[in-house]
């Protein structure tokens, strides 16, 4: 009973309190607060107006008009949640109140504001996608930047900006085809004529790049764009780039590919096997095919080494000067060490073919002259050098090329020299044949080098102390007789216990095939290089 009475007491208390609060003084304060509130509202000072109405509300809680006015003022102050609370309170207490039509309208306004805030948030999120994409792009995180651009495009498919950004990123990634497609799409969406014109020019440039990617290769040394089928790079004379030749795609760096050189002494005595290093990631054409990013990588690699460029054309480095003519490199000057390399060449169609070049291999200088057939293939080659690594003999080598079914089949190389009076006027001649064999897929299967002959004969006795020296080299040597034991090597002098001689040096014939770039060790009379490839490997 006691509990029941208490409950009744507490339930009755608010009513009592409300009635008790409605004293004349209270009414005056209420009226004053409402009046002030209206005045502040008229001055658009909604915060002060709300404070006054809040005072009125505290004096007479839940007055419907005050509740409504407070809701409106809160809404005008952009306090949407608080305004909604007042609206809810009003509707709870006065579902059919006099202000109901206005409350309904306010409710609609509040819903609109909610929608507006939602949209504002969506707009901010959308702009944020761009900010993040730009930040990541600046950090070279192109994949992440692209994803954000694509996300933005999904959200607003008709906004040209994300499409443009995708195009720029694809271009940066080197995917020019996709970049062009995106730029075309951007051009459809963009309404600004100037922006469209700018992109049209860019599309034109990219189309040209894509065309180059189909028709051009890069010089892997200097990065110059060359037509497919080019001989040598006319700006650094690296090459040759005979991309259609199976010889130049015979050393791929792929699983299942190998090149093993077996060497034999005279009478076919086995010497050793050597694995030859691979040269290109795939075929020569695929490996050198032009892409802007590959060109940039090559040029960057050279620039890191100190080489400089004028546009695409390599110019040299502080200690090496490339004397570039109008169309080709004419001379290389090593300004510190003093070497001079001269070149002469002619243009055949799109290709540049060397007529003459100076070569430097391990400090030894060679002069190489080429003759080409009607198909711009090497037909004949002559190499002259003074063998500074031995007795300074003036050595001449010639090579005659033979082709079968458009592929190099054999090369006959002859070499020799005439020595000096002091050493007894020796005369050495040798002949080496190189034979290339191909498999049924047109790939180089075997390359065989055979020393067909090697002869040396002294015209007279060597002079003085040199006679003693040479008797140690060739104990049975007699003037005007072929030297016996020449198959051990063509020696000419000693350097202490070391024998100096003229090896059969095939390195100046580098343009024949990559696996020929080699000097036969003394005594080796035959070398066979066997090539293997993965089944799927194709040259053309």
């Amino acid at each position, binding site marked *: 009973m006691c509990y029941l009475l208490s409950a009744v007491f507490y339930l009755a208390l608010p009513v009592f309190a409300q009635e008790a609060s*409605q004293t004349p003084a209270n009414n005056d304060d209420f009226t004053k607060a*409402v009046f002030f509130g209206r005045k502040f509202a008229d001055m658009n000072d909604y915060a002060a107006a709300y404070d006054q109405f809040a005072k009125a509300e505290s004096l007479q809680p839940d*007055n419907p*008009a005050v509740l409504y006015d407070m809701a*409106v*003022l809160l*809404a*005008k102050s952009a306090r949407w949640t608080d305004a909604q609370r007042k609206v809810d309170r009003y509707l709870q207490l006065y579902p059919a109140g*006099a202000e109901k*039509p*206005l409350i309904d309208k306010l409710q609609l*306004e509040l819903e*609109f504001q909610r929608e507006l805030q939602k*949209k504002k948030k969506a*707009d901010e999120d*959308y*702009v944020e996608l761009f900010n993040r994409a730009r930040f990541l792009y*600046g950090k*070279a995180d*192109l994949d992440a*930047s692209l994803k954000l*651009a694509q996300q*933005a495009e999904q*959200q*607003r*498919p008709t*906004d040209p*900006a*994300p499409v443009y950004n995708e195009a720029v990123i694809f271009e940066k*990634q080197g995917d020019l085809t996709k970049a062009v497609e995106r730029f075309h799409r951007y051009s459809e969406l963009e309404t600004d004529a100037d922006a469209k014109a700018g992109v049209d020019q860019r599309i034109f440039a990219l189309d040209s790049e894509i065309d180059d990617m189909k028709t051009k290769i890069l010089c*892997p040394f200097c990065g110059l764009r060359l037509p497919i089928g080019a001989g040598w790079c006319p700006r650094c004379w*690296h*090459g040759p780039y005979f991309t259609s030749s199976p010889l*130049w795609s015979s050393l791929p760096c792929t699983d299942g590919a190998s090149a093993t050189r077996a060497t034999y002494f005279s009478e076919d005595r086995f010497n050793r096997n050597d694995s030859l290093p691979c040269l290109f*990631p795939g075929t020569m054409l695929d490996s050198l095919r032009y892409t802007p990013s590959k060109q940039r*990588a*090559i040029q960057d690699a050279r620039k890191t080494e100190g080489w400089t460029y004028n546009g695409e054309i390599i110019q040299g*480095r502080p200690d090496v000067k490339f004397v570039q003519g109008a169309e080709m490199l004419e001379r290389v000057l090593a*300004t*510190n*060490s*003093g070497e*001079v390399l001269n070149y002469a060449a002619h243009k055949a169609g799109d290709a540049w073919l060397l007529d003459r070049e100076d070569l*430097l*291999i*391990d*400090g030894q200088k060679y002069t190489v002259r080429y003759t080409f057939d009607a198909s711009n293939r090497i037909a004949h080659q002559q190499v002259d050098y003074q063998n500074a*690594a031995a*007795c300074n003999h003036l050595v001449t080598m010639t090579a005659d090329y033979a082709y079968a079914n458009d592929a190099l089949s054999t090369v006959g190389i002859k070499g020799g020299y005439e020595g*000096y*009076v*002091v*050493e007894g006027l020796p005369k050495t001649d040798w002949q080496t044949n190189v034979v290339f064999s191909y498999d049924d897929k047109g790939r180089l299967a075997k390359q065989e080098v055979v020393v067909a002959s090697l002869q040396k004969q002294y015209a007279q006795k060597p002079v*003085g102390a*040199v006679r003693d020296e040479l008797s140690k080299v060739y104990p049975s040597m007699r003037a005007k007789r072929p030297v016996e034991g020449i198959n051990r090597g063509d020696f000419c002098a*000693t350097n202490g*216990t070391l024998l100096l001689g003229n090896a059969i040096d095939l390195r100046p014939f*580098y*343009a024949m095939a*990559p696996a020929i770039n080699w000097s036969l060790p003394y005594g080796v009379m035959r070398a066979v290089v066997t090539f293997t490839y993965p089944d799927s490997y194709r040259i053309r």
Partner: protein
Amino acid sequence: MYKPDTRQFTEVWGTNQFASQAACDRARDAAMKRNAAVVSYLKHSDSNYDLDRFGPCHCDGSIDPAMPTFLNDAQRIAQLRTAEEIRQRVREHLLDAGLTSDAELIRSLYPAPVPNPLIGGPRVVPPPQVAPVAQLGSAADLKVTKAIDASKPAVASIDLPLVDVLPPGTPAPPQTASTPPSSPSSPSPAPTPELPTVTVEAPPTTQAAPPEPAAPDTSAEDAADNFIGYETQRIQNVLKAASTINDESVKSKIFEACLQRTQLLSNLRGLILGAGTHSRLAADAGAAKSESERVAFVSKLFGSEIAPHWAAKEATDVIVDGAPDNPEKLLRDRQSNDEQKRRALYFLLARITATEEQQLWLSTLIDGLLQ
């Protein structure tokens, strides 16, 4: 070169070539030193042995056919052979003098070839193995969206009046707000039913407009309530209709247009109230009851071009394109014609929250346009 066998000198040229004067000078000095060392050694046994004589470094005339010193290939080979024959003789003398073949003096007769990898590398090189490092791009390469117009108001103005609060104890009139937006009998347009399509329905005039024609002495407040209340409802209807559209970009544009319209209506209310009961603006706004009268009023105020957008049949009609960059400048420009000014007025009111000063200026301007 001094020939020890004949004790004669032989002139040799064109046997070497240097990239620069400095390189030639360095090579010449080194050769002279080596030769001096050799001769110094040989003079022990042969006091008449002479030094080689080195000419100064100069331009290579042996490669210029116009020069008397020019050498063809055969002549050059002959020069090389001559030089080498003499060097072999000297070597033989040194060996004969008791030096071993690997003695420093003998080896110094032939300067050892020094590999120069810069110009002597292989002629076919593989492309760089390292993956190309992506070049850092500038953030400015990428565009910023223009789809979001940051200049537009982020908050729409609330165009609702406060109601009078009756003093405590005063009996409230049933179902009546003290300042109803349109008429005492129907305080505001009832929410229209949900629109199934994007077609926008005009608010029901019978509910929005008072039942009787406005008296000539209708107050500015009533005029504002009459026009603005109805038009606010119209724009709410557009928003509802737009909610059924799926294309977010179109929806967004409609939303922007509604936001602008709401702002415009808020400004227009202020202008009507500020212009006063006897103003043309209040009179015309109060008199615009029917749909055709409203459209006529809008045409008179904002130009006939705006009218179809104002009373949009489709939600998308509410979008008004081609906003001038600076409508206020256009309005103040004396060379602008009335039609241009009307159009500029629409965009100005849609963008700004008019200050008192702007209200005064615009009231005068509108009065002129409504004449």
